[in-house]
Each structure stands twice: as C-alpha cells, then as structure tokens.
C-alpha cells in the first residue's frame, strides 16, 4: 500500500534534515546501523508492535526498565508500538530486560543491548537488513545502585535505541539532540528526541 505523494515527499525531507544537517551538530547526528537491525515485531506491516518482558518483581525497577520501550512508543507518536508481555520475564518476548547473570556486558559497562537470535536478508523491496527475533537489555546491578533515576531513564531509552537500530553516537555534548550519546554523569535527554524517532522509523522502512 503506497502512501500519498505529499506524505512521502515530507518524509524524505525530514529524513534528509535529520541525517544530512545532523553532521553539522546543529541538528541530531543520530545514525542507524547500515544495514539496519529490525526487531521483527516493529516492521511497518502488519501492525508495528513488539513485545517486551521484565525480569524483576520490584515495581520501581519495572517502571524504570519499561521506560525504554515505552519512551520510544511515545517518541514515534505510537507508530512503533511496544506491549508488555502478560507473562513475567517471558523468554519468548522480542526484548527481554534483565540483570546481568549468564548474559553480561563486558568490562565497565553500565548496561548493554545484546541481539542473540536473528537472520540476514538481502531484500530488494525493503533493503538489506537483519531481522532480529530476540534481544536483551542487560543491566549491571552494581552500577545501577549508584546512579540516579534520571540516569537510569536516560540509559533505558538509550539501550532501547539500539533495539531501534541506532548506533552509539561518539559525543557527550547535549547539542547533538540524540539519546544515543555517551551514558555519563551528565544527562542530556531522558527520552528519544524527535530526530531519533525519525531515524529509527527510517531504519525500519517506515518512509518507503
């Protein structure tokens, strides 16, 4: 189903603005993986919904962990939807959020995003990409204990940003207008920016 021409042109303009002008630092320099990683549930068709699950029973931690996917749903205006699985810590959900244990992030990491079930596609219609069936956001409990809720929300949205196929951005300057910068002491954003949302939808083929 093709979108009206005006919307397609507007989408292209927005993508050019977000990716092209971004290199100047005046607008976001957020950038997707090339080729992109796409959580299968978030494909534009049939319904753009991915399921996530939380491996903790602590309500405060649940809220902070859920901030990641939910903040992306808000940032994309509901175009990319996330649904909490009805089964706690559901191992069959597409994004599982948990503490370090068997899965761990390596040295000095506060948190990480791990894709562990995927397939590669050379697709002439939607572009070369990798379908990601299962991924995890993994948290270091020791680092968690010494950070503020603001840092946790920022990190939550940042890690989910990897699930949205966005790479880290090598800068900690707040002027970059992206959630994908360094996770440091300075919190620039607690949720994805407009430009992050545009970049993620572009990576998933929402603009044709």
């Amino acid at each position, binding site marked *: 189903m093709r979108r009206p021409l005006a919307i397609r042109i507007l989408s292209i303009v927005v993508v050019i603005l977000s990716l092209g002008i971004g290199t100047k630092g005046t607008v976001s320099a957020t950038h997707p993986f090339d080729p992109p990683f796409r959580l299968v549930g978030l494909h534009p068709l049939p319904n753009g919904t991915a*399921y996530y699950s939380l491996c903790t029973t602590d309500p405060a931690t649940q809220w902070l962990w859920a901030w990641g996917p939910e903040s992306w749903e808000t940032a994309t205006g509901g175009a990319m939807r996330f649904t909490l699985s009805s089964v706690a810590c559901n191992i069959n959900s597409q994004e599982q959020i948990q503490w370090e*244990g068997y*899965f761990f*992030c*390596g040295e*000095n990491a506060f948190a*990480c*995003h791990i894709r562990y079930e995927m397939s590669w596609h050379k697709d002439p219609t939607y572009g070369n990409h990798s379908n990601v069936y299962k991924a995890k956001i993994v948290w270091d409990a020791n680092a968690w204990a010494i950070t503020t809720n603001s840092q946790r929300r920022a990190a939550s949205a940042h890690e989910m940003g990897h699930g949205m196929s966005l790479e*880290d951005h090598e800068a900690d300057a707040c002027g970059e207008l992206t959630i994908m910068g360094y996770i440091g002491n300075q919190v620039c954003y607690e949720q994805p920016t407009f430009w992050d949302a545009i970049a993620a939808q572009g990576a998933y083929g929402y603009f044709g």
Partner: protein
Amino acid sequence: MKGRLTFVVFGLTALGAAGWLGWSLFGPATGEGTGERLRYVNISIALPPEDSGLRAHPDYAAPENSEVPGGGPVVVIGGTEPDAYLLLDALTGEVLVDKIGPTHRDAADAILASVRQEREPPQLWPLAGVAPTGERVTFGRISFIEPDPGSGVYVALGEGDGPQGNETFLFIHNGRSRMTLSESGETNMALVLAEDREVFQRVASVVVVAEGR
C-alpha cells in the same frame, strides 16, 4: 573397441568411488546434516523448516523466570506471538512449557519427536575441523564466522554502554561458558570453563577487527 570402452567405464567408476571414499574420510568436518540441527548443552533438535512459522533458538532463563525454576539453559521454539511457545530444558530435554496452539501443533510435534541427548560432540567447527571459509558476518568494525548451530556454540552481538564510553562486542556462549570480545580487541574469558577454552579460542581466533572507529 568394446574392450577400450569397458576399460574407460571401469576407470571412471573406480575414480568416482575413490573420490567419494576420500571425501567421506578426509573431507571437511560437516557432521550430520550441517545447518539442520540445533544443539545446546546436552540436547539437539531438528531445526524447524522455514515455512513452519516456528523458529528455534538457545537461551538462558534468568532466575526470575517462573517457568524455569532457578533459571538455566533452555531451547525456545516459538513464533512471533510471545505467548505461544515451547521450552525445553537444555540439560535433560524435558518439556518445561508447551503453549503451542493448533496452528503450529504439527510442526512442534515434529520438533519434539526429533529431540535427542547428545553424548559425543559433533565433528563440526569450532568443536573440530577447520573454520569454514564462507561469508563472514560483520558487526560494526568486527567480523566473525558464525558457528554451525549443530555445534552448540553461538555468537551474539552486543553494544555496551558506560561512563567510559560505548563499545560493540561479541558475546560467545554455549550454555555453560561465555566470553566477550570487544572491538578494542579486549577478551574476557573469566567465565569460560577449562574444557571449553580451546573451542572458544577457535572462534576468537578468526575474529577480525577493522582499524579506526
């Protein structure tokens, strides 16, 4: 003339037989059905056909998972619906959860019938043989060779984030041991059991990290 033809036919047959015998004995360590079975810890299953609507993958249940008391290695078989899946204990092959509905019942039953205990390691790289020379998987600056799922060794792709910066890394695991290998070349093998070290080092030895950032 007839005698010469007979000689040629016999010669070609003998050459073919010798070639087949040589390939069987000394060819690449492909093992049984390369790419057809998924192995994890002590069990293996037949991989679901692509048109079955099901996928199978190894996972390690967190301790908080109520369906796997205490957590542990499992094989997950399911589709994209999160509440319809099969969970197999990767240590015993026991069915821990069966929530597969009628749509995928036949395909799931075929997989269940294929479950078997693995007593001997299959002759597949990186457990044995030489690394395949096929297509490499590239992730950021890192490229690697994906082990055959029948080997029971898997590579996952990670991005680590902390106050000291961000780094992509490979997470290599087999349900008992696991290690990380980062784009800076740093490896963490502290959680690799002694009996798995050689195998994990084989996977790490064919990882290539490109220069620059």
